[in-house]
């Protein structure tokens, strides 16, 4: 099996569109991916840099509130904080709308899928206050610009990002013999969380060749990675543990604390063969099947090793490999399901722009929660599950079916004829049963819903 434009759009893109033609070749897909990010320009999402303004204001108000609790100024600050939280919540719903519109109107679906994949690989979320809404801005700044570069650039960008440092408790990790620890004595200490997750989740993988000693040494090497609300990322030498650290048998540091040593270890980890294998396997699982063939993973891994983690070359190997074109693919995650439904319905940007937070919540975000994906709130740093079984639960399927029958009428006031929509949404992948259901349904809404709920549409 090999390249098929419809399947390429479904499996590696955001689904079929009645308006936008699928790319004609692997080459065209990859060329678009290395070209300009048109969707980011057309449907902007706040950058994290801008988002920091919210954090700053929140910190300022918190200070006022703490100063003289119960005073009018303090009460006003409490209100201001509530407003800041509320505005961030409302804006975050808007960014979700933009995410959907990018998926609906892109001519390079692979970019949107990769932004989701790598954003999930480097899962980060805020734990308190306005920061809880920072995930999309983080992905916009740290992940999206690096989708087509070397993995090490992506890794370094994520690991140095304030939201990532916050999520994995790095910003307060202090070397036991650092300048700060010897001065302050209490409430300081090493936090191994980031170091452990970088080895286990982001690079080598849980079966990778590392020990607790490597985790400890990497945690010591990572000390100093922190951030300030005003200026963002900061390497704080006073937090840094002095001395040489040995990670996977190689020595780092020893002289004055330098960020360069952290970059060096991240580059070495990114180029490690175990990382190559782990990432290529994960990509194949995400895009093709829960159980990709060994041949596919090996081919991708070899290319990764040869190119020192050049992601474009890895994607190229994936797209050109016959084993990537098996007929029945993965179950779409709720974001892929809802996004591809919007695309098939050609949902108008003006319509989504007019949705307020409540409309987005009631019609899309909350139903996605019932499908099992509470948006930007995965349970742990390992992100969303890949296994089909996790998504095809009774409540997940009920939620998908109910959504498919009920909501399209809101998203597309001019619902298409289900008999046409079968072709629009499924192309040649429509089955006899689905075509029959489209014809036999009593209403347009039912017909559209059954097509969207069909296994052929829900698999990618």
């Amino acid at each position: 099996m090999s390249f098929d434009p419809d399947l390429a759009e479904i499996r590696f893109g955001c689904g079929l569109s009645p308006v936008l033609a699928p790319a004609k070749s692997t080459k065209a897909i990859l060329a678009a991916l290395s070209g300009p990010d048109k969707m980011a320009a057309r449907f902007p999402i706040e950058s994290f840099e801008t988002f920091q303004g919210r954090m700053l204001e929140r910190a300022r108000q918190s200070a006022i509130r703490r100063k003289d609790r119960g005073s009018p100024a303090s009460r006003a600050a409490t209100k201001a904080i509530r407003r800041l939280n509320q505005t961030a919540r409302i804006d975050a719903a808007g960014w979700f709308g933009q995410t959907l519109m990018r998926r609906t109107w892109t001519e390079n679906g692979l970019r949107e899928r990769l932004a989701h994949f790598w954003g999930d690989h480097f899962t980060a979320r805020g734990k308190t206050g306005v920061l809880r809404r920072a995930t999309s801005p983080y992905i916009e700044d740290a992940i999206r610009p690096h989708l087509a570069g070397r993995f090490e650039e992506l890794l370094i960008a994520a690991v140095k990002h304030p939201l990532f440092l916050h999520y994995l408790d790095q910003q307060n990790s202090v070397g036991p013999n650092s300048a700060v620890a010897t001065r302050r004595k209490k409430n300081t200490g090493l936090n191994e969380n980031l170091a452990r997750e970088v080895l286990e989740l982001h690079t080598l993988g849980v079966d990778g060749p590392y020990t607790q000693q490597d985790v400890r040494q990497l945690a010591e090497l990572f000390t100093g990675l922190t951030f300030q609300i005003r200026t963002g990322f900061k390497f704080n030498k006073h937090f840094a543990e002095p001395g040489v650290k040995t990670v996977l048998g190689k020595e780092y540091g020893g002289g004055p604390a330098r960020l360069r040593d952290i970059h060096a270890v991240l580059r070495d980890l990114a180029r490690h063969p175990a990382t190559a294998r782990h990432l290529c396997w994960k990509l194949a699982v995400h895009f093709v099947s829960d159980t990709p063939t060994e041949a596919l993973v090996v081919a991708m891994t070899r290319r990764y090793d040869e190119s020192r983690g050049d992601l474009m070359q890895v994607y190229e190997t994936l797209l050109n490999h016959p084993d990537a074109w098996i007929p029945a693919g993965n179950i779409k995650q709720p974001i892929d399901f809802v996004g591809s439904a919007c695309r098939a319905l050609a949902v108008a940007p003006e319509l989504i722009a007019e949705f307020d937070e409540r409309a987005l919540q009631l019609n899309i975000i909350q139903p996605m929660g019932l499908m099992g994906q509470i948006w930007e709130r995965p349970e742990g740093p390992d992100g969303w599950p890949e296994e089909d079984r996790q998504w095809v639960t009774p409540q997940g399927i009920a939620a998908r079916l109910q959504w498919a029958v009920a909501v399209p009428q809101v998203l597309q006031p001019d619902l298409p004829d289900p008999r046409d929509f079968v072709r629009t949404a499924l192309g040649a992948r429509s089955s006899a049963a689905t075509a029959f259901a489209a014809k036999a349904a009593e209403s347009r809404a039912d017909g559209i819903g059954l097509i969207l709920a069909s296994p052929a549409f829900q698999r990618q």
Partner: protein
Amino acid sequence: MSQRPLTRRAFLTRSAALGCSVAASPLLTPMTFAAAPGDNRLVVIILRGGMDGIGVVRPYGDPAYRALRGHHPMVSDTGPVDLDGFFAIHPALRPLMPLWHAGQLGFVHAVSTPYRDKRSHFDGQDLLEAGTPDLSQGLARDGWLNRMMTTMPGITARSAFAIGRDNMAILSGKTPVSNWSPDSDLQLSPQAMLLAEMVMAEDPLFSAALKEAYGLAGSDGDPVRSLASESEILAEMQQNMLAATRGGTETKIAEFAAQQLRGATRIASFSLNGWDTHSQQYKGLNKALGRLAQVILELKSGLGPVWDKTAVVAMTEFGRTVRLNGSNGTDHGTAGAMVMAGGAIRGGRVVTDWPGLEESALYKRRDLMPTRDVRAHAGWLMRELFGTSVRDLESTIFPGLEMGNNPRLVL
């Protein structure tokens, strides 16, 4: 039914009355029950946000209490209710007093998870549900209820239910469990129901899930089959979503839990939100406790005779500061209280090794001092309800826990 089957409990009551030694009863040997998960039920409610233990189970007999929290006379019908001359419960739990008198409501006080000092909801809940001693191993991958189930015999996917749309980390893990959210109410036209079955028949995974979804969605007395128009169905779905954001789904969750627990389900877990009472907490606590009381009463009425085999525990990630803050609320603290209910528990008492509220007795001079790891109480409950071994409890289910004395929480 005119002829009621002899339940295990009824049998035990009778054999006890006949003077037969329970320990010697052949029906109680592990052999007999080896292939089944037993008859007892456990419901774990996660109270998200940090419940103020001191505001809920008030140590009014502590000399320092009044200065910290004020005087609330127990005279009117709306005031707090005395429990034992030392503790009184928050007025919003008044509807549960009949259970207290029947020995079916109890509390554990001045307990906490091993979580200390950072007081983050996120980490605190993660630790509570993971059941681990700290987060040094990174964030959790599975929950303690799920790990406990790996030690239970005769487990099927229906043995445990995670209910509601929250991810219940406490039940996630290797053992397959069922998930359902009673607000995922499925409504389809009769024709669409049939066509959906036909469309899904192509793919066994989907087909099986749909079949189960029809059963579960229809089990709340509101059938899947609907003659409503598409715009009515949409309005209904939106209404459900709205109800979910405003709360009010608790009753449905409790009803659903009871329904499953009457059948093959032995363990159910769900969460109740709204405990993060930083300001005007008498208002906030009233609401949250009202919901908790309602859920417990709903479980009791829904469970019928099964209530007698049921233990309900409500746990929270941490307690709150002993002092009120400037806005009549409390901030994140350390030790707090656990609520227990059910016919299987030995209630009518507040289990505690009360540390006192004078400043020197507080944790970091601000929080109620934890006197015991709340995991020990959960552990003993499981030990007594399901026969889970102390070794499993101390090693895999709650790593690093020392079970200590049996507080004998179960009848």
